[in-house]
């Protein structure tokens, strides 16, 4: 079973298997025999992997797993390659304008169906008391603006979507 994990922006393709005795996480850098047992306080686990034993606290959200280990918190984003393929027709990254940080939509300069040129302002957002103008990543036609003026959005939310280009 395959999963893509993203840590600090770096993606690694893996697949998980079980050899009858133990789980094996296969990665481009080698196979990691591993085992995870719940233990202790809420979210507490003992991880045995690659010959190491670590106590950790863990919580899994819908898209990411958070791990507290040795006094540090790490975020591991999980991507199901099947879903990524299925979602492929929603367009490539240059069809989308995503939120560089969480904030609020201040104003919208275009509407779905509008022809826009690369660099043309699409909408103005406010984050941390700073206004930022987001522009079209390429020439194209606006397909969707999921947020209205005054709406709040999160980091990486899609704020504008262009109609995909014909191949």
């Amino acid at each position, binding site marked *: 079973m395959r999963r893509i994990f993203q840590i600090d922006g770096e993606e690694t393709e893996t*697949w998980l298997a079980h050899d009858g005795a133990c*789980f094996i996480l296969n990665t481009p850098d080698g196979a*990691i025999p591993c085992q995870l047992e719940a233990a202790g306080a809420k*979210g507490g686990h003992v991880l045995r992997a*690659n010959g190491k034993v670590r106590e950790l606290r863990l919580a899994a959200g819908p898209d990411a797993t958070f791990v507290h*280990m040795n*006094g540090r918190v790490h975020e591991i984003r*999980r991507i199901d390659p099947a879903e990524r393929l299925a979602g492929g027709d929603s367009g490539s990254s240059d069809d989308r304008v995503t939120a560089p940080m*969480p904030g609020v939509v201040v104003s919208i300069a275009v509407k779905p169906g509008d022809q826009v040129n690369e660099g043309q302002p699409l909408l103005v957002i406010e984050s*941390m008391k700073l206004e930022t103008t987001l522009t079209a990543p390429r020439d194209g036609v606006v397909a969707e603006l999921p947020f209205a003026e005054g709406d709040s959005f999160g980091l990486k939310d899609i704020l504008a979507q262009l109609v995909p280009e014909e191949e």
Partner: protein
Amino acid sequence: MTISKLLVANRGEIAARVLRTANAHGLATAVLRHASEQEGPAHLIAHEVVTIDGPTPVAAYLDIPQIVEAAKRIGADAVHPGYGFLSENAGFVAALEKAGVTFVGPTSEVIDLMGDKVRARAFVEERGFPVAPSAIEDDDPASFVERARAVGYPLLIKPSAGGGGKGMRVVREDSTLETEIETARREGERYFGDGRLFVERYIERPRHIEVQVMGDGQGNVVHFWERECSIQRRFQKIIEETPSPALTPEQRDKICETAAGIARAVKYRGAGTVEFIYAQDGAFYFLEMNTRLQVEHPVTEMVTGFDLVAEQLRVAAGDGLSAVQADIPQNGNSIELRICAEDATADFRPAIGDILLLDEPQGEGVRVDSGILDGGKVTTDFDPMLSKLIVHGRDRAQAIARARQAVQNYVVLGVTTNTGYLDAILAHPDFASGDISTGFLTEQSETLTAPGEDVSDLLMAAAALSDERLVSEVMQIPEMHRKMGGWRN
């Protein structure tokens, strides 16, 4: 006058903190909550929760008529404003006064005076307290260059209409003064459409040192020693401590007495903080006075043993100060860390998310003033500060060790926080030696955000094995194929 019912016109950790003291003193208590707001610790501590509304949650907390009306409706005879929001709003104080409700804080006149930076500075200077040498062009344009020269070098030229560092020039030598004034004037005209300037003495590697004061409104003022708040990002403090590692006992007495003197000059009522800029050579200058309880007040409580909110309530009730100066000790060292939902590796961008797991540290010398609950949601509606971790130690080394231990065990999962970054600051040798200035975080940004040991193999294993869907899919494959199962799919 006595206070029997207190409304806390604030939210988050400070509302919870004020409510705890008020409850312990036998007052009936109430707190505000905006309809869209997550439940927080304050809502569980208050005897009563008053719903407020407004176009945005922040607007509701700034709505003076609505809050005054709420205080009257529930029969509160006093309002504690916390910090931020309406805590330094003279109009709020006046509206409460008119409604016959006691404001826990200074008079509206003092709030007005100290809220106007130019008037406050002039007031302080006229009474002989130290302000950084400066010259304002508008006072007498013809003599501006002469007066600028008299300020002394290095000096900083700023556009009068300016902000955000634009058009500022540092001048170190007299020979370049006049050309730099002309350059700054052109920049001021370009950026702000206004070429008027002022100059002030430029302080190299300054520290931010402030003093906690408390007055009874009759001219009696005591100080509760200083706090050093030089560790700042985006001009906002994230680590504060007391005592300051920079001060000798003589300098400490001098700066604390200066602060108390300024507060005495305005017959200050309640808790206030006098902020100073402190130069490497030991000179210090008045910056501003904050006429409220500060975020970082707990470090003062840890070393003095006083509950500053209890003191505020006492003064507001007309019972005066509970202590004279000689009764206020400074025992050991205390450090506060502001736990914020933000990404320190991405220019402190605020983070949002659901709190999936919360486990706050405990232990000897550890205090947590928290504004969050397990299962809560962090949004961009309010400030990114979630809670404060405060520690006390017999000396600075023990306080740092306790702070590191506690912040490493501060588990917030589900939203990015700055706990790792705070620990990196505490671990820095210059922090340990106390060699810090307000530029420290910028100067050391690369060191402080350097990636740690690569543990990605362990993290991926943990993420895979805790992914219930992934594990169940693997286990559904007939045993003989499981080992290779991933290849076939």
